[in-house]
């Protein structure tokens, strides 16, 4: 609550700063973006699962894409032509999500379903040059990406279970807090509309790639991590191999977005 208030006061102070700007003020907007991720390990799971059940599978898992696309919303402050009419800056909060479902049907009619959800919560800080028409900024982004896999077994009558009757069922999650850096450029259309285009690249994952995607709410002898190789995971009944896991690093990647922002205040 206190941090939210501080953030809002900070945004408001930006709004007060823009008195002499070409344009600037509190903004609300939407963006459509492409998030890349390292899907190789997820696809190792898919391939190993399909191979493990090769003799008894009606429909195989399809592979995961390397890039996910979807909308995001954005709120904050943006200004251009500040301080001597050359400075441009922005401070914004952005959130968006992706959902990728995959399913495989076994010979018995049991269906396995993976629901990959990725939620981004980003803080964007931009600083650069700009005037009346637009801006070109360096962009630093604190990205808090929460990735989850909800793994269901779907029975022959359509009932969906996430219970413990199959060890693979579960709710697996991992966060990828990342410092990203890139470029943001934009044009002003009319008095209140801004079209920003942004590209950011992952530069620093604090602490390195060391957290596995885990189901924290299950208690079993087998590993609680979401496996990279399904067949090794099946054989590893006592959960000895903690390296056979999807990790936070598998969800790192470049982001490209194009958006529309509306100046609420001028």
């Amino acid at each position, binding site marked *: 609550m206190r941090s939210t208030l501080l953030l809002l006061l900070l945004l408001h102070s930006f709004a*007060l700063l823009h008195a002499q700007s070409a344009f600037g003020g*509190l903004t609300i907007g939407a963006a459509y973006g492409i998030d890349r991720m390292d899907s190789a390990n997820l696809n190792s799971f898919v391939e190993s699962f399909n191979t493990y059940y090769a003799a008894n599978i009606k429909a195989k898992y399809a592979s995961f894409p390397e890039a996910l696309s979807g909308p995001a919303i954005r709120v904050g402050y943006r200004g251009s032509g500040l301080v001597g009419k050359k400075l441009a800056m922005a401070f914004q909060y952005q959130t968006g999500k992706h959902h990728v479902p995959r399913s495989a049907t076994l010979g018995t009619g049991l269906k396995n379903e993976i629901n990959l959800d990725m939620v981004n919560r980003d803080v964007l800080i931009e600083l650069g040059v700009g005037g009346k028409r637009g801006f070109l900024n360096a962009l630093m982004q604190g990205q808090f990406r929460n990735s989850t896999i909800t793994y269901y077994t779907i029975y*022959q009558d359509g009932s969906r279970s996430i*219970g413990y009757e199959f060890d693979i069922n579960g709710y697996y999650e991992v966060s990828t807090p990342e410092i990203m850096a890139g470029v943001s450029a934009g044009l002003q259309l009319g008095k209140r509309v801004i079209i920003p285009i942004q590209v950011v690249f992952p530069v620093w994952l604090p602490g390195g790639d060391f957290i596995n995607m885990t189901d*924290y709410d299950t208690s079993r002898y087998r590993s609680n991590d979401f496996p990279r190789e399904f067949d090794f995971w099946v054989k590893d009944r006592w959960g000895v191999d903690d390296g056979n896991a999807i990790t936070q690093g598998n969800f790192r990647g470049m982001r490209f977005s194009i958006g529309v922002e509306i100046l609420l205040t001028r």
Partner: protein
Amino acid sequence: MNLRLSFIGLAIMLLFSGCDLFEAPKERYISKMLGTWDITELNHISILQNGTTQTLLRQENAGTFVAFKGPVCGEGLGGALTYCNDFTYNGPISGPIRAVPMPRQGSFSVDAAAKRVIFILSECSSLIGCDRAWTVEKNTAQEQVWSYYKVGPNEVYTDKLTLKMQKQ
């Protein structure tokens, strides 16, 4: 004018900041569950490989589930408190064909996304592998639907037990 608009925007955002948007779903769910729930329907079916189902037991007004704050057992990650012995179940345990896998009392929890209700140590007393998870099928402040599954030998059939509950 600009300044006035800017303050109006700030006031609207302050209004929203009063909501505790970051409360964990786990805590929200447990808070919602506190109280007495009538088990309006208990339905025990068997799902066969061809997709048909057989009803093993169906009972209306099958008892109550009472959730309350028991004694504090420990502190989880982020300072969340965990409670012990925080429910009682007053419903059928044995059906005509197979037993209902629900203890009379104990501790329950929920996963981080409120997709599973977990009955802690309900199967045995070892620290590992003794919990039971029920899938949350419906989750509102006034109505809960939970299902428990048990796979039969060679996956020929699967038992599904469903509790429909209304808050008193």
